[in-house]
C-alpha cells in the first residue's frame, strides 16, 4: 500500500556533523617530494640554459626565472602543510562526503545509489609511500567525479570494496 509520511526536515541527519577522517600524513611528504622533483627539473633546465653555446642572455629575465621557480618550489613545499590536514572524508551508510579547501572550502556528497563504478590508482611515488587514490564515478561525467588522494593503500582498497558492495546492494534493490 502506498504511504507518504511527512518528513521533519530539521531532524534529517546533517552532512556536516560527521566524524571526518584525515588523509595519511605521509601524503604531505609525497606532495613535497613531487614539488622538489618538479622544481629540480626546472632549475636544471635553467642551469643548462647558461651552458656555453646556449643563446640565453643573462640579466633580469634570467634572474626573474630563478626567483619564480624558487617561489613556486617554496609554495609547493609549504602549501601541503596547510592544505592536506583540511582534506577530509567521511563514509556514511548511504553516501560518501569529501571536504577540501584552504581559502575556497567545499563539501561534496555522493550517494552510493548514484555511483556507477569505483577505482583505485597509485603512481610509483604513491606506492613508495604506501598511498593510493580512490576515484568515484557517477553517470554522465567525463572523468572521475570525485578523487580522494593520499589514502593509505589498504584503506583505499577496503573503501573500494565497501563502495562496490554498496553499489551492488543498491542495484539489487532497484
Amino acid at each position, binding site marked *: 500500500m502506498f504511504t507518504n509520511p511527512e518528513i521533519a526536515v530539521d531532524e534529517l*541527519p546533517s552532512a556536516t556533523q560527521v566524524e571526518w577522517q584525515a588523509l595519511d600524513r605521509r601524503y604531505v611528504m609525497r606532495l613535497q617530494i613531487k614539488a622538489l622533483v618538479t622544481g629540480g627539473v626546472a632549475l636544471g633546465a635553467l642551469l643548462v640554459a647558461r651552458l656555453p653555446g646556449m643563446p640565453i642572455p643573462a640579466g633580469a629575465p634570467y634572474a626573474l626565472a630563478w626567483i619564480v621557480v624558487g617561489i613556486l618550489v617554496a609554495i609547493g613545499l609549504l602549501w601541503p602543510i596547510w592544505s592536506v590536514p583540511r582534506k577530509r572524508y567521511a563514509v556514511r551508510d548511504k553516501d560518501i562526503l569529501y571536504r577540501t579547501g584552504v581559502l575556497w572550502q567545499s563539501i*561534496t556528497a555522493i*550517494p552510493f545509489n548514484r555511483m556507477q563504478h569505483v577505482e583505485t590508482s597509485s603512481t610509483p611515488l604513491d606506492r613508495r609511500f604506501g598511498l593510493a587514490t580512490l576515484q568515484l564515478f557517477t553517470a554522465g561525467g567525463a572523468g572521475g567525479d570525485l578523487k580522494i588522494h593520499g589514502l593509505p593503500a589498504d584503506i583505499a582498497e577496503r573503501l573500494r570494496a565497501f563502495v562496490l558492495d554498496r553499489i551492488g546492494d543498491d542495484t539489487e534493490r532497484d
Partner: protein
Amino acid sequence: MLARNAFQSLAPLAAFVFAFDGDPLANLLLGGSVFLALIGATAALRYWFFGYCITETSILIRDGIFNKRQLDISYARIQAINTQQNILYKQLGLVTVTFDTAGSSAAEGYLPAVKSELVAALERRIRQQPAVLPVPHESESASAPPERRELLRLTAGDIVLNGLSSGRVFLLFALAGPIGEYVDTHFKESIEESAVIEALTAANASPGSGILVALVVIAAIVLLLFGISIVGSFLRYHGFAVTAGDERLRSTGGLLTRHEHSITKAKVQSVVIIQPAALRLFRRFRLRVRQISSGRAGSSRDFVVPICRRGDVPVLKREIFGEELADLSPDPFASGFSPVSPYYLRSRIVLFGVLPSIAALIGLWPVAGPKAFLALCWLVPSSIYFWLSWRRFGSSVLQNGFALRSGLIGYRVNVWLHRKVQRLTITQSPFQRRRKLASIRFHLASGSVSLPFVDNAMALQLQDYLLYRIESS
C-alpha cells in the same frame, strides 16, 4: 548503402569532370565508370561486413572492413532512438537509425539504411524490457503500438519566427564580412567601370545618395541573411510536431530530410526553458529536454522544441515530469523565484570590474599617463552585466524538484527532479564565509548547474534534504 555511397561520391566525381583537361563528356564517362565501380565495391564490402542482430535484451552491431567493431547495446541503456530520412531514402523506403546511449560519447549505435518498419519493431522490443517499464501483458504490448497524443505542432508563422531568432543569422553576419571583403577586392575594378557608377557620376551624385546606396545594400544583405535563416528553419522544422506516448516523447519534422527524435521520459535529466532576447520580442520560448551526456563539450543530444508558446511550456512540463512537479511553475516571470544575495553583485563587480580596472590603470600609467584612467570605463559595462545577471538569478525549491532561473537579457529556467541529482557540492569563498553565504553546485547526469550566494544554513539544510530524497529514491 549503395545509394548512400553514391550520394557522398557526387562531389569528387564533379571535381574530376571539371578539373581535368579534355572533353568533359569523355571525362564524365571515364570518371563515372571508375567511381561507380569504386562505389559499388565499397558498398558491397561495407554491406558484406555490416551486420546487426536484434536479441531479447540487446542490439548487436558488427561492422568494419579493416577495423572490426562489435557493439552490444542493451535496451536498458538506450536513452533515445533517432531516425533520419532524406529524399533518396524516402524513395527507397529506408531510414538511418541512431541510438543515444547513457554516458557514451563515441560508441553509439548506428544502423544505416534499414527499413522503416524496423524502427517500430525495435521500439516495441525496447518497450518490452522490464528495465525500462514493466509490461503486465506482453502479448498486448507487442500487438499494437501505444496511442500517441499530439502536444504541439509548429505553424508556418512559428517556423518563420524561429528562423528570425536563430543564432545562425549571427553566424551568417560573421561570414558576410569576409565575403564582402572578397567581393570588394575582386570586383572593385569592374564595379568602378560599371554603369551604376557612371550614372551616379553623371548625375553629380551628392554624398547623401552614397550613404543611401550603402544603406540599401546593407538592408538587402540583412534581408538575404534572414531569408536564408528562414529557409533553413523550414528545411529542418517543416511539419514539426511533438507527440507523447505512455513512456516516450517524439518529435518529427523536416522538409527534405525527415528527422525523428524520441526520448524516454523516465530518462530525462532536466528541462531547460530558454527565452533569448529575440524570442522575448516574439513572446515565444525554446525548450531543451536534456538526457545523460558524455560530459564532452558540444556533445549535445538534447531533445529540442525550437519554438513554442507560453501555454505550451506547462503542458510539456506536465508530460515529462507528470504530477511530481505539478506545483512548480516553469514560467520565468512567475513570482515564486527567490533572489540570490546582493553580495553576489558586489563580489562580481569587485572581482571582474574593480580589480581588472585598477590593474589596467597601474599597468598602463607608465606608458599612457593620465589617459590610463580610461581603463576605469570598464567598470560601467561590467557593472551593468552583473546587475542584469543578478536580477535574473532566482531559485525555487519544491518538495520534488528544483527550478533555477538565470540569464542576462533573456531568460533561462533549468528544471529538474531532486532524485536526478548525482552529487552535490557546497563551496564557500573567504568572502562568503564572512557573510554566512555559500554556492551550491548540482551535478546532474546531463551537466552541472550552480546556484550562487545563498544563505549557508539554507544550503546545508538543502543538502541534507536532497541526500535524503536521493538516497530514499
